[in-house]
């Protein structure tokens, strides 16, 4: 019996388990998936918790519900991967051998990387919304907040879901407007990037939206530390920004296990061929999603598109053939812009987000780089698609490769 081992039962690992079990003969291939947690989080939903739109129960389900019959699931922390010997050692010493390994251990926030961040104000007046605990604590804070300086800060690149902090400030604008205290709240968006987003055309569109909503942007701010006494953030070049409440995207890092395995870069992301999705170090190891260092967004949509490519290439590798499929870095992100509207961007390694329609040229129904009600419905309905179709590896009616159809070049 040959063995496929998947580390991580998040979005990527779960999709792969479903695809592979369906495709491979059970007499021939044994499939095992390992994860340290039993809870599957619908992470795009975290953003809505601080504003009371979702609650905790809307975003959690048992991981086991999404792993198909015929796949072994082990709940355990991983000590390390020993790629030279084709084995993984679990916490406690149990050894799992593999013929092929898929690393899908994602990215986590690590507030301890920024001095002063995880100290006395943590989850009291300083919050992240990339954990369910942070998002829930922030909701409780916002419920009775009287207003003041709200500072949204990004600590380091890359980070998971690069549009989330923008969506956060748009939704905050709506939330405090409806609470009747928007005139008492000033919102500042602080980023290490030179503008609202990385790519020029989207930056212009989103930048204009920020101005329209009276949200101040402070670009090129690279945070060094947080001063809990004076309540301010300080950059490496000595700029200071005071806050009453700080919401932050802490430094993102790959799993500690990657570091223990000696397989990561300086942020524990695994060096990966950006086209084939194979590890640069081991021929029988593939890396899916946020855990890799490929130069595209760390996001569920990317994982979903990449899973198809990885699946095809894994089949090639099993037969000892050249890897045939090439990933193009396709990302597709809904951007909540507040007041029941949303925008949408679709891009890849080489093409920046452009205006147009998606997925059908001229028809849509979604508008690229437009601010529409329909885009918002796309985001709302996506939660259902995620639980019922995406995780189970079912075909969605969109292309894995980005297409220029429906896009307008500038």
């Amino acid at each position, binding site marked *: 019996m040959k063995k496929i081992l998947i580390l991580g039962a998040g979005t990527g690992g779960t999709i792969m388990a479903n695809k592979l079990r369906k495709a491979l003969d059970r007499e021939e291939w044994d499939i095992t998936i390992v994860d340290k947690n039993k809870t599957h989080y619908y992470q795009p939903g975290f953003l809505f918790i601080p504003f009371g739109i979702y609650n905790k129960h809307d975003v959690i389900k048992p991981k086991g519900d999404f792993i198909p019959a015929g796949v072994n699931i082990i709940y355990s922390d991983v000590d390390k991967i020993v790629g030279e010997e084709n084995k993984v050692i679990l916490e406690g010493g149990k050894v799992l051998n593999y013929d092929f390994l898929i690393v899908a251990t994602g990215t986590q926030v690590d507030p301890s990387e920024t001095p002063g961040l995880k100290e006395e104000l943590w989850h009291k007046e300083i919050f992240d919304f990339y954990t369910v605990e942070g998002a829930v604590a922030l909701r409780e804070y916002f419920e009775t907040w009287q207003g003041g300086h709200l500072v949204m800060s990004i600590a380091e690149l890359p980070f998971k879901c690069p549009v989330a902090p923008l969506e956060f400030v748009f939704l905050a604008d709506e939330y405090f407007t409806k609470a009747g205290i928007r005139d008492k709240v000033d919102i500042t968006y602080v980023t290490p990037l030179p503008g609202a987003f990385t790519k020029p055309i989207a930056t212009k569109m989103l930048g204009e939206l920020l101005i329209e909503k009276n949200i101040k942007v402070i670009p090129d701010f*690279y945070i*060094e530390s947080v001063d809990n006494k004076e309540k301010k953030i300080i950059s490496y070049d000595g700029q200071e920004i005071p806050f009453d409440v700080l919401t932050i995207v802490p430094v993102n890092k790959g799993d500690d296990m990657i570091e223990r395995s000696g397989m990561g870069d300086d942020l524990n992301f695994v060096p990966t061929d950006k086209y084939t999705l194979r590890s640069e170090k081991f021929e029988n190891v593939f890396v899916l999603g946020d855990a890799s260092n490929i130069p595209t*967004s760390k996001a569920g949509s990317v994982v979903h598109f990449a899973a198809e490519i990885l699946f095809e290439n894994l089949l090639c590798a099993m037969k000892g053939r050249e890897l045939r499929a090439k990933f193009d870095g396709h990302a597709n992100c809904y951007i909540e812009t507040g007041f029941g509207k949303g925008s949408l961007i679709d891009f890849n390694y080489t093409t920046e987000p452009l205006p147009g329609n998606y997925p059908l040229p001229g028809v849509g129904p979604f508008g690229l780089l437009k601010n529409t009600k329909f885009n918002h419905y796309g985001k709302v309905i996506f939660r259902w698609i995620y639980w019922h179709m995406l995780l189970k590896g079912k075909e969605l009616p969109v292309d894995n490769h980005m297409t220029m159809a429906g896009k307008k070049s500038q």
Partner: protein
Amino acid sequence: MAQKTIAGVNLEVSEEGYLADPTLWTEEIAKEIAKEENIELTEKHFEVINFIRENAEAGLTIRKIGKSGIVDIKGFYGLFPGGPLKISSKIAGIKKPASCV
């Protein structure tokens, strides 16, 4: 793309002044670009610039330079005030670093 004469050499540069072809870079060119940024290059600057040129392909971040063993992040800001990664990349003759999120 535009043409620009730097240190007596006619070069192709981007709208923001980044060299189109990193292989044409010389220390003289670096000094002249630095002068436009009001920076007088020292040996320490050149150590950082060489690190940047050697690691340009793999992609650079401020954090990575802070871990280079040459300067820490604060020191990097001290050498190239304002936008250290952008300014040092321009002086090092490599393309403008793109954030790929």
